């Protein structure tokens, strides 16, 4: 299947190779595949404002490098007394957009349908669209930063992925910054700025996994609404953040009632080795609550009246290591939910681990791979088989950038991702969306993607 696909796109690959031949910084890599989730990302508006190429802030956009991380920590300010909007030409408008037309193939085994209750393989293939992200980020004034990311899904649903204001360098110190609104959690491994786009590869199992039958709705990679106090050293090699967040996974309108979640992260980087960046290690933790009882009216729950909050935790450690142009990102995490949030009388707990590797051959060519595993250490319902819900996810990809300059960007993206889940539907939503016939059935879901990912 893969082979047939590749033979079909070979002529296109040749065209792309020759188009990308000239400069010394890149060799082309052909065929890419396309995207799934909404994503915040590279901001060409910043490139236009400061005259830097995308590669200055990003290892391979949208992933940030150390310089870009410092820029972001500083409130999207370079710190040269020229950040306030008054220093820009009136015509500069801090807006950028990103979208990804694509061709992709999805195939999922053991999908239960009305006609085939034991499960069949469902396959889809064709040209498709991703959503559009509108990235409005910048400074309102010196040391006052704003962000607004409206989104438009491919099916026309609108959303608001981020909307925040941030007061930077309080007391003229980089150690105190306060952000209020809806924003991405300060994850060292950012899901919003990672380089994966396919249905099965475009999210992290470690961040979104919930046990079968769980009533929880938390995703570590989902943007949350709250307030964040953060700080960093002058070169951002040391960073911390502490946040208080409302409890409904970024849904506005206070549907969860009165409860709060809390999160902390801390990381430290070391200028060791001669790789493309420093070596960084970090820890993170999340303490969340979800209401389990709602008042009702006419039998239907009244939104916002939740009570009897039960807690859940996520914590882990991660690192970003550089060996020359090879970046290695390991992550280990442990999660457990209160029994009341889970499918049964016990507290479900699980462990996840992932290793992601990027080889940034040049600023215009990156090859990547990722392997994740999720293992239930305790099922919420003692009747569940020990392995139900366990997942393995694997992905490989290439991103080639035909040009790298300071106004906009484009990546030709190819990706193959494969997940194996036991007794549960794949998290991507591929297939029928229904759990397989038995709790021990192994479900394979594969995505193959060629995409043109551009932002301007």
């Amino acid at each position, binding site marked *: 299947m893969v082979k047939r696909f590749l033979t079909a796109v070979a002529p296109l690959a040749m065209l792309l190779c020759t188009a990308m031949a000239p*400069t010394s910084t890149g060799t082309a890599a052909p065929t890419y595949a396309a995207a799934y989730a909404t994503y915040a990302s590279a901001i060409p508006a910043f490139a236009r404002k*400061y*005259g830097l190429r995308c590669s*200055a802030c990003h290892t391979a956009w949208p992933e940030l490098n*150390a310089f870009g991380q410092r820029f972001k920590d500083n409130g999207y300010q370079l*710190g*040269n*007394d*020229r950040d306030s909007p008054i220093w820009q030409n009136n015509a500069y408008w801090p807006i950028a957009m990103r979208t990804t037309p694509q061709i992709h193939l999805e195939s999922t085994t053991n999908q239960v349908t009305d006609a085939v209750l034991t499960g069949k393989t469902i396959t889809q293939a064709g040209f498709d669209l991703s959503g559009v992200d509108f990235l409005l980020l910048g400074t309102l004034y010196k040391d006052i930063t704003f962000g607004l990311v409206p989104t438009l899904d491919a099916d026309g649903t609108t959303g608001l992925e981020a909307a925040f204001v941030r007061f930077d360098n309080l007391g003229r110190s980089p150690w105190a910054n306060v952000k209020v609104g809806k924003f991405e959690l300060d994850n060292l491994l950012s899901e919003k700025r990672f380089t994966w786009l396919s249905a099965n590869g475009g999210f992290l199992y470690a961040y979104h996994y919930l046990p079968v039958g769980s009533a929880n709705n938390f995703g570590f990679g989902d943007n949350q609404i709250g307030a964040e106090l953060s700080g960093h050293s002058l*070169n951002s090699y040391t960073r911390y953040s502490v946040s208080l967040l409302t409890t409904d996974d970024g849904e506005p309108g206070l549907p969860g009632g009165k409860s709060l979640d809390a999160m902390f992260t801390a990381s430290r980087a070391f200028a060791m080795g001669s790789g493309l960046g420093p070596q960084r290690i970090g820890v993170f933790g999340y303490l969340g609550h979800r209401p389990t009882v709602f008042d009702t009216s006419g039998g239907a729950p009244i939104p916002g009246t939740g009570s009897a909050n039960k807690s859940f935790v996520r914590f882990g450690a991660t690192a970003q290591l550089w060996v020359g142009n090879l970046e290695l990102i390991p992550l280990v995490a442990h999660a457990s939910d209160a029994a009341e949030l889970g499918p049964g009388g016990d507290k479900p707990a699980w462990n996840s681990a992932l290793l992601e590797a990027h080889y940034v051959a040049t600023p215009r060519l990156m090859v990547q791979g990722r392997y994740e595993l999720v293992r239930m250490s305790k099922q919420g319902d003692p009747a569940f088989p020990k392995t139900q819900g366990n997942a393995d996810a694997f992905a490989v990809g290439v991103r080639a950038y035909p040009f790298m300059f300071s106004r906009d960007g484009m990546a030709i993206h190819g990706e193959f991702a494969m997940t194996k889940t036991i007794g549960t539907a794949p998290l991507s939503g591929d297939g029928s969306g229904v759990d397989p016939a038995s709790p021990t059935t192994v479900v394979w879901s594969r995505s193959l993607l060629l995409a043109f990912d551009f932002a301007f």
Partner: protein
Amino acid sequence: MKPQTRWMSLVSACGAALLLAGVTPAPAVAQEAHVGTLTGHAAAGKPLYTRYCAGCHGDDGDAQGENAMWIDPKPRDFTMATFKCRSTPSGSLPTDQDLYNSVERGFVTTNMPPWVALTPQNRINLVAYIKTFSPRWRTAKPGTPITIPAEPTATIQSILHGRQLYQRMECWKCHGPAGHGDGPSAHELTDNKDDPIRPYNFETGSRFMCGTANQDLYRIFMTGLDGSPMPSFADQLSPAEAWDLVHFLRTLQPLKTRESAIWHEWAATHAGELKPIGPEGGGQ
């Protein structure tokens, strides 16, 4: 082989080699840079330069990057091997430490960011690569850094003497009588590429191009900012006089410095004794 033929082939081989050496460009010297215990290599710096620097400074280091036409001040042209921020006398090359510091510090009020987030090894590799853009790095050595003696304590006498020097050295002709960058010659200044350039305005209180400390200020006027209208006063000022001038210049900034505290305390009661700075001469 007959002796004559062997000789001919040797001559022609040598001749060919010499001819080729003349025709092909001289092999790039494996340029290195050294700061402290760090050693940088140009070959490692080249991909970093393309990633971080070439957008403004140009792939050939000639300040013709795609953004150069949109920014002011223009980026540094490395092919000219003339640099503003040095510890070495005017007309001489900067040391590797000078270049390394400039990359780390950036240049305030310009588009050159502080690259402090890059690892020291990456920055020293960049310095080594920057030195490959001009042939002068192969033929000349960096100058000897000037000696900056220990700073004497700031006193009102030092500040007042510095004020006299500001008058006598005619700094006010560009920087203005109160250091606001509005002297009679300020608006016609051009740099070595004939682009307009403004003198530093002390009233903004922003960081100097070449640092923030008194030692940096000392170094600025005792080495000059090559490529700009700012000359070196090393031949005209003794170190003691230079420190007096530094102390006075600090009083022109709206920052809370020791010098400005001394100055304001004195000026509260003695301001009437001061002759104005400017064309009338004077400047007590």
